[in-house]
C-alpha cells in the first residue's frame, strides 16, 4: 500500500529506535497512524503512535517530550523564590495549585507554619482554580466528543474566575501568587463579595451543563463504555485525583493528608458510580470532575465564612529562603491529581534538587493499557478523560 511506504520521508532526522512500531513488523491490514504532535485533540504536543486495523486500535504508544524544557535543571540554578514562576508554568491551567504545592514543600523544609488568613486565602484560590481547571477539562472534553457549545459555556464561567484572579494578583494565568510563607497580595476589598456572586451565578451552570452534555444519550454512549480503568490497575499505576476516584476509590489528599487546614472543611469525595456502564469509564472520570466542582463550591462557601478578617499575608515570608540541609516531600490535591515536589536542600540559597511528581505524567503512563482494543474515536475520548496538560507531563 502506497501510504505505508511513504510515511517516513524524513528518515535521517528521526532515529530508528524512536519508533515503537516499525512498518515491516505490521501484519496485513494494519497501519501506523501518527496522532500528533500537531493534532486538534491531543491537548498539546502529545504524539501517539497507533497501530490500527481499520478503526480498531491494536496498540498505542505515547511519545512525550515535545514540550520538555527541564524545569528541574532550571530550578537548580535559581533561588527558591524564583522557582515559583517556573512551577506556575508546569500545569499552566492550574498554576495556583502548582505553586501552592511548591510553597508547601519549601515551608515543610523550613518548618514554617503560615497564618490562618493565608491558609484560608490559599484554600480560596486553589478551589477557585480547581473549578477553573475542571471547567477547562470538561469543556474541552465536550469538544473532543464533538459538542462545541459546552466548551464556550465553560469558558464563559472560567473567564470570571480568571478575572477574579487578575483583580487579586494582576495575572490571568501564571500568577506567582503563592509564596514561600505567604501569598503575594492580600485580598482586595470587595473580592469576597464578588466570589460569592460568582458562586451564585455558577451553581445553575453546572446543572445546565448536565442537561446539555453530561446526561446526553450520545455523550454517555460515547464515553461510558470506553477507557475502563479497573480499581486495581489504577492503584498499580499510582493514578490520583479524578482519574483514581473515577475508578471508585475514595481517596483525596485533602481528606487523607490535609494541608492548608482542609480538615476543617466539610465536603464529600465524589467517586465513579458506573451509572451508564462499568466503573472507571471515561464518563465516570468526567462526572467526578463535575461533582467536584459542586464540592468546590461548598468548600468555597465555607472558606469565605471562615476567612479571618485580619492578618498579614506577608508575616511569615522569610527575608531569605535558606533552608537547612535536608529533604522534603509534600503533596497536594491539584485539579489533575496528586502533585508532589521532592526538594533536596544543601543549605544553600538555591535548591540542590527539585523533582516534580506530576499527576499527568503518571496518568499518561497508563494510556497504552486502556487504549488497546478501542476505536480511534475512543482514543480521543480517553485522552480527554485523563485530563492531561502537556506542560506538566513534559516539564
Amino acid at each position, binding site marked *: 500500500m*502506497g*501510504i505505508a511506504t*511513504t510515511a517516513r520521508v524524513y528518515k535521517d532526522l528521526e532515529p530508528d529506535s524512536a519508533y515503537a512500531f516499525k512498518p515491516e513488523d505490521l501484519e496485513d491490514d494494519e*497501519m501506523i*497512524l*501518527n496522532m500528533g504532535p500537531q*493534532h*486538534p*485533540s491531543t491537548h498539546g504536543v502529545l504524539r501517539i503512535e497507533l497501530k490500527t486495523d*481499520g*478503526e480498531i486500535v491494536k496498540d498505542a504508544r505515547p511519545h512525550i517530550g515535545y514540550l520538555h524544557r527541564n524545569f528541574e535543571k532550571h530550578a537548580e540554578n535559581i533561588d527558591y523564590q524564583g522557582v515559583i514562576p517556573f512551577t506556575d508554568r508546569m500545569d499552566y491551567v492550574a498554576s495556583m495549585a502548582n505553586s501552592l504545592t511548591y510553597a508547601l514543600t519549601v515551608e515543610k523544609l523550613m518548618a514554617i507554619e503560615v497564618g490562618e488568613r493565608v491558609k484560608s486565602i490559599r484554600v480560596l484560590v486553589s478551589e477557585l482554580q480547581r473549578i477553573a481547571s475542571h471547567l477547562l477539562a470538561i469543556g474541552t472534553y*465536550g*469538544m*473532543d*466528543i*464533538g*459538542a*462545541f*457549545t459546552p*466548551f*464556550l*459555556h465553560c469558558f*464563559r464561567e472560567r473567564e470570571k474566575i480568571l478575572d477574579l484572579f487578575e483583580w487579586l494578583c494582576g495575572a490571568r494565568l501564571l500568577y506567582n501568587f503563592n509564596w514561600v510563607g505567604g501569598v503575594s497580595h492580600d485580598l482586595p476589598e470587595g473580592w469576597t463579595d464578588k466570589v460569592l456572586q460568582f458562586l451564585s451565578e455558577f451553581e445553575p451552570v453546572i446543572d445546565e451543563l448536565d442537561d*446539555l*452534555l453530561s446526561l*446526553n444519550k*450520545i*455523550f454517555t*454512549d*460515547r464515553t461510558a463504555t470506553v477507557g475502563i480503568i479497573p480499581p486495581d490497575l489504577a492503584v498499580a499505576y499510582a493514578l490520583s485525583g479524578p482519574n483514581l476516584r473515577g475508578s471508585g476509590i475514595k481517596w483525596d489528599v485533602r481528606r487523607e493528608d490535609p494541608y492548608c487546614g482542609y480538615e476543617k472543611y466539610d465536603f464529600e469525595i465524589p467517586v465513579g458510580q458506573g451509572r451508564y456502564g462499568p466503573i472507571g469509564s471515561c464518563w465516570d472520570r468526567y462526572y467526578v470532575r463535575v461533582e467536584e466542582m459542586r464540592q468546590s463550591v461548598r468548600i468555597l462557601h465555607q472558606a469565605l465564612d471562615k476567612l479571618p478578617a485580619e492578618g498579614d499575608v506577608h508575616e511569615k515570608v522569610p527575608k531569605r529562603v535558606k533552608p537547612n540541609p535536608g529533604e522534603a516531600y509534600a503533596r497536594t490535591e491539584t485539579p489533575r491529581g496528586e502533585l508532589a515536589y521532592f526538594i533536596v536542600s544543601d543549605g544553600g540559597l538555591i535548591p540542590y534538587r527539585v523533582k516534580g511528581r506530576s499527576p499527568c505524567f503518571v496518568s499518561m503512563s497508563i494510556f497504552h493499557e486502556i487504549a488497546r482494543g478501542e*476505536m*480511534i*474515536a*475512543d*482514543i*480521543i475520548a480517553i485522552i480527554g478523560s485523563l485530563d492531561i496538560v502537556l506542560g506538566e507531563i513534559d516539564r
Partner: protein
Amino acid sequence: MKRPDLEAKISNFLSPLVIAGAGGFLVVIALLPKIAEMIRTQLQSALSPTWASVVNIALGVGATVFLLAQLPIFLIWFERKVAAHVQDRLGPMRVGWHGVLQSFADGIKLLFKEDIIPEGADRPLFRIAPVLVIMGAFAAFAVVPWGHGLIISDLNIGLLYIVAITSLGAIGILMAGWASNNKYSLYGGMRSAAQLVAYEIPTALVILVVVIQVGSLSLQDVIASQSDGLWGENRWLLTRMYGLNLIAFVIFFICGLAETNRNPFDIPEAESELVAGFHTEYSGMRFAFFFLAEYGAMWLVAGVAAILFLGGWVGPYFSGPLVFFLKTLFLVFVQMWLRWTLPRLRVDQLLALCWKYLIPITLAVLVAVAGLSVQAS
C-alpha cells in the same frame, strides 16, 4: 489613509449593499412566479417554441446556480451567527454590519490561497473529487420545485433522481480521501462510504412511505397532493396517518443529517479525531468547493424534507417560492441548532443507529402506511 479607516469605509459602503441585496433577493423570490410568467410570455412571443423552452431552461439553470452560489454565503454567515449566539458569543462582527461581509471576505481569502496538492497524491482524482462533490449536491436542484411551474425539469422520477444523484457526493468524498495520500483523509473517506451505504436505505424507505401515499415520484405531484395547507383533506403529509408520517419525517431528517455529514453525524470530517477528515489536505478554492457543497446539501435536504412532509411551496395562507424558502430556512436552522447542541456519534454507533433503529422502524412505518393506504382506497 490609515488601513483601519479604509476598511471601515469599505465595509460601511458594502454592508448596506449586501443587506439591500438580501432584501431584494427575498422580494425577487416572492415575485418569482410573476417574473417567470413574464419571461415565459416574452420568450414565447419572440422565439420559436423549441428555442423558447431551451432559453427558458437555460435561464432556470442560471437562476438556480446563481441562487446556489449565493445561498452558502448567506448560510455560512447565518450558521456562524447561530453558533455564536447559542454559545453566548457575538460571532463575526468586524466585516460589515454584524459581519455580513464575513463570508465574502473568507471567499476572497480562499480564492487567493495557494492551491496545494500534497506530494504522492493521486493528482487527477485529487482534482476531480471536489467537483464531483459539488456536482452531486447541486445537480439535485434540477428537480426541486420552487412554485407552480417553477422547476427546471419536472421529472416523473424526481425523487429517484435525487436519491441517485446525491450519492455522487459520497464517491467524491471517498475519492478525496483516497487521493490525498493522508491517513486521516483515508479514514474520512472510508467512514463516509460506510455511512452513505447505510443511510441510503432508510432514506429510500422513508421516501417510499411518501410515494405510497402520493402515488407518484414527481415532486410536483407530491406537492399537489398536499395542496390544502394545514387543514383539510389534502393537508400536509406530516399531520396525516395518525403520526406515522411524523416518525417518517424525523427519520428522513436524521438520514438527511447523516447524508450531509452534519453533526452529530459528521464522522467523515470529525475535526477532533481526523483533523479535518477527507478534506484535510485541501486548500483554497478546492476546499471552498467542499464547503459550498456542504451548505448546498444542507439546503437540499431541508428543501426535500419541506417538500415531502411540509407541502413545499404550499403554505397555509399564501403559496409561492417565499413559503418554500422560509420552510427550508427553518429546517436548515434546525440542522444548525442540532449541530451546536449535540456531540458526535462514533462510527459503530452511527451504523448501529441505522441498522438497528432506523431501518426496522422505517420498515414498520412503511408496512403500516401501506396497510392504511390500502384500507383507505
